[in-house]
């Protein structure tokens, strides 16, 4: 029998705020253990929470991005459970009135090949609610260590409908989610840094049927490969179970990346009776129409909308838009350059090839950020203009670009200072070409015999002798007229 998997995701995204959700202790990744706390973070007796405005606003923005309904009144509830990383013995979360209800995330599936855009579809959201993060446990042999730096950081829990059927789709969902979050400045969504964490609900059913099978919750899918491998493993495991006549148990399983398998989590907790009730320490938040519209006006153009526009407006190929559009800064950079000099294709190529290559080489941990790059959009525009005007060849342009990248000087300055302009002076070239024709009878004969390509050998020699400064078009013309006349 053929089976179909049904997958829903619960994604926790750490909101990019400067301070924590209920107190002004700072939060950022990578601080030494237990240096980002205060009485509120540690849940000392007598401490009280006060809501961070930015956390509420960023959460509402997520709803606006995905077309969710934004709750008019938000309240916060206590989710009561004990764990060593949870300072108060309860987590402040949202139970029955989440800040975002419904909505959908547009995803892009992989195309048949790398240069062909795949299908776009949407994954519906159930809800998104704002809650606080817990501390971080490091497990040793007989003991565990607790660091409360992360405790109290604002988290948005985004829950999807069971709208996905393959790990590929789940992956595409996370990719799209992350892209939108980073675009709107809501989160950096770096899974390595725990800024995006994913749990999946997976069930299977015979292909073509509608009824949902027993779902299993998979926890700890906290890397990109974990999401793919964990879900794939679980689908296979469930199919094997059914085929071997076993029933699927509704349970929580944990993805063990090292052993590449999911294992059942037999928690000591008898049941999950979280005893939610409204937090008496926090007041409700009303989001007025004006506030919501104000937040909407701060949203950028979304990545897939931008991609559609780039494909159409600039006639760029998907191979290029798929590089530029997922990165808001890079695509803005591109458009800034195009606004200065209108040759989208050449500019896009220069960015997608030369610029990204140099950034990758220059960075110590991953690519050098674009903001630290000395080459600005006007430099790119200037360089393309020099090529288009025939002042430098494309070949020379490559060297000029590398120098621009190192020095931050404008292309025309580099070209002028180093005398890199192309030679288009025909009398000088004619003498050189005559010499080369005389010394290379073989390709000359072949060309005469009808092999058009044979001229390239001669051209190459000319370029070599002029150190690339000859205008290839002019060389071509001169060679042809000398041979044929």
């Amino acid at each position, binding site marked *: 029998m053929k089976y179909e998997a049904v997958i829903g995701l619960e994604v926790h995204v750490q909101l990019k705020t400067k301070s924590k959700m209920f107190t002004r202790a700072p939060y950022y990744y990578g601080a030494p253990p237990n240096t980002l706390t205060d*009485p509120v973070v*540690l*849940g*000392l*007796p*007598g*401490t*009280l*929470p*006060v*809501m961070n405005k930015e956390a509420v606003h960023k959460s509402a923005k997520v709803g606006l991005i995905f077309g969710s309904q934004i709750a008019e009144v938000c309240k916060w509830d*206590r989710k*009561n459970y*004990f*764990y*060593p990383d949870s*300072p*108060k*013995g*309860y987590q402040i979360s949202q139970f029955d009135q989440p800040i975002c209800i419904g909505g959908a995330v547009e995803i892009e599936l992989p195309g048949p090949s790398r240069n062909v855009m795949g299908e776009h579809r949407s994954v519906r959201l159930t809800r998104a609610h704002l809650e606080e993060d817990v501390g971080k446990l490091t497990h040793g042999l007989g003991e*565990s260590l*607790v660091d*409360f730096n992360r405790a109290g950081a604002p988290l948005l829990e985004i829950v999807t409908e069971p709208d996905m059927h393959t790990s590929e789709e789940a992956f595409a969902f996370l990719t799209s989610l992350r892209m939108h979050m980073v675009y709107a400045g809501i989160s950096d969504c770096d899974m390595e840094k725990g800024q995006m964490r994913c749990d999946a609900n997976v069930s299977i059913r015979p292909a073509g049927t509608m009824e949902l099978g027993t779902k299993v919750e998979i926890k700890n899918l906290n890397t990109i490969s974990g999401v793919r491998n964990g879900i794939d493993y679980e689908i296979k495991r469930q199919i094997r179970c059914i085929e071997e006549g076993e029933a699927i148990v509704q349970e929580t399983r944990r993805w063990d990346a090292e052993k590449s398998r999911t294992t059942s989590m037999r928690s*000591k907790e008898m*049941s999950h*009776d979280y*005893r*939610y*009730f409204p937090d*008496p*320490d*926090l*007041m409700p938040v009303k989001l007025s129409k004006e506030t919501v519209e104000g937040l909407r006006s701060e949203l950028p153009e979304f990545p897939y909308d931008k991609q559609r526009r780039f494909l159409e407006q600039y006639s760029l190929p998907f191979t290029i838009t798929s590089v530029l559009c997922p990165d808001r800064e890079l695509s803005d950079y591109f458009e800034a350059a195009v606004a200065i000099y209108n040759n989208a294709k050449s500019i896009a190529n220069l960015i997608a090839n030369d610029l990204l290559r140099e950034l990758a080489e220059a960075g110590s941990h991953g690519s050098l950020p674009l903001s630290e790059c000395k080459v600005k959009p006007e430099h790119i525009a200037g360089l393309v203009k020099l090529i288009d005007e025939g002042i430098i060849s494309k070949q020379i342009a490559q060297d000029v670009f590398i120098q621009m990248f190192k020095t931050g000087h404008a292309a025309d300055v580099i070209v002028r200072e180093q005398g890199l302009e192309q030679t288009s002076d025909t009398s000088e070239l004619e003498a050189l070409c005559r010499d080369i024709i005389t010394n290379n009878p073989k390709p000359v004969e072949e060309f005469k015999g009808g092999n058009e390509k044979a001229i390239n050998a001669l051209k190459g020699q000319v370029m070599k002798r002029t150190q690339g400064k000859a205008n290839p078009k002019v060389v071509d013309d001169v060679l042809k007229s000398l041979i044929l006349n």
Partner: protein
Amino acid sequence: MRCELFFKTASELSSLLDSGELRSVELMQSIIDRTQAIESRVGAFIDFDADEALREASESDKRRESGEARGPLDGIPVGIKNILAIRGRKLTCASKILEDFVSPYDATTVTKLREAGAILWGSLNMDEFAMGSSTEHSAFKQTANPWNLDCTPGGSSGGSGAAVASGQAPVALGTDTGGSIRQPASLCGIVGLKPTYGRVSRYGLAAFASSLDQIGPMARSVEDAALLLQVIAGHDHYDSTSLDKPVPNYRDALKAKGPWKLGVPKEYFGEGLSDEVRAKVEQAIAYYKSEGCEIVDISLPHADLAVPVYYIIAPAEASSNLARYDGVRYTKRSFKTRDAIDMFFKSREEGFGQEVKRRIILGTHVLSSGYYDAYYLRAQKVRSLIRHDFMQAFNEVDAVITPTAPTPAFKRGEKTDDPLLMYLNDIYTISANLAGLPAISVPCGLSSDNLPIGFQLMGKPLEEGSLLAIAHHFEQAHDFKSMHPSL
């Protein structure tokens, strides 16, 4: 009879300090001497540091000499219920589980007292986590009622009540979740005011029931209560439930002369009220009438539901508030454990007393799956009805007058193992917490056994000033404030 220094009111002491007739160090020494003389019998303090208090006193004296006194409380010792965080001092909440916890921060009320130049005098005993009405649930010691050492001082702010009544502190801070300032004030023969919910910041008050808790003054005179409230009241951005409303001058408010319209709710004078208390409260009512006040019979139809509503809401919130005492970060930990979960179970079993456990179990039940709607949600709705009753009444009257507690002080050990009987002690005080209203207990006489009796005034939200004025009016005509227990 010449009044001993330690029995003078804060306002009297304040004038003596201002005129230079008294130095804060002398005052502090007199209180330390008094405490050392009687504390072994009263047991009001969990802890005090005489040297530190004298040091603070001498700093106050220096300020006064250089004309930099910070107001009427500068140099006046204020006793602090040991449920309020004081930086560098133990915050035990009278619980074994917090026995070793030293607070690294100040409660907002404590910061305000420091700014006013007050001496933070001692940590006062209480029922563990403020759960109780007799101070018998302290993990550390018993506190006796200074009027009769066999009796309880009431609770949970029993240490505060006993200290103020016995001359071990001129004024003190208490906290009130269901009557824990007013009931011990009544039983100890002093004034106790629970402010409007949100009037005083709760930041630094270890939470019992967050939607009910308030910090308030306990004092030997209404004026002293006004002085102390003046310092601690006001908006605080560390407390989301704090009210951002201007703080009136409470001492000026005392000048109001009435007459007032007072409501007498029949539900507060029914079964369970002792004859002696009834008689004294009726005398007080008669006094107001004789002063031209209009006395109106009113009804608060949901009054008898206050106790069940309270004993659902308060334990529910407490079960969650006390979850942080888990043995991980700062509470006492049991080390006889196999794993982290076991550590929770054993640390909490060893660290909490019976009453606390009882309320955690009750609170856990009323919030648990399948019971939430029937208990917690329903209680919250009835709470709305109770508040509504009061708001209706306040359309007609300025304040409501009732007994504070059904009986004078009861014997220690009498009710400790009958929670329901103990809970009924709060029958008249709980409503003000549920409705968020200000309420004050004022001494109005002694029983045949020479035990104090108080009456309660409840007012409109933020009308602490009117309550103080009405209480002051009574106090001026009755000399209960110079009545002291003989010890």
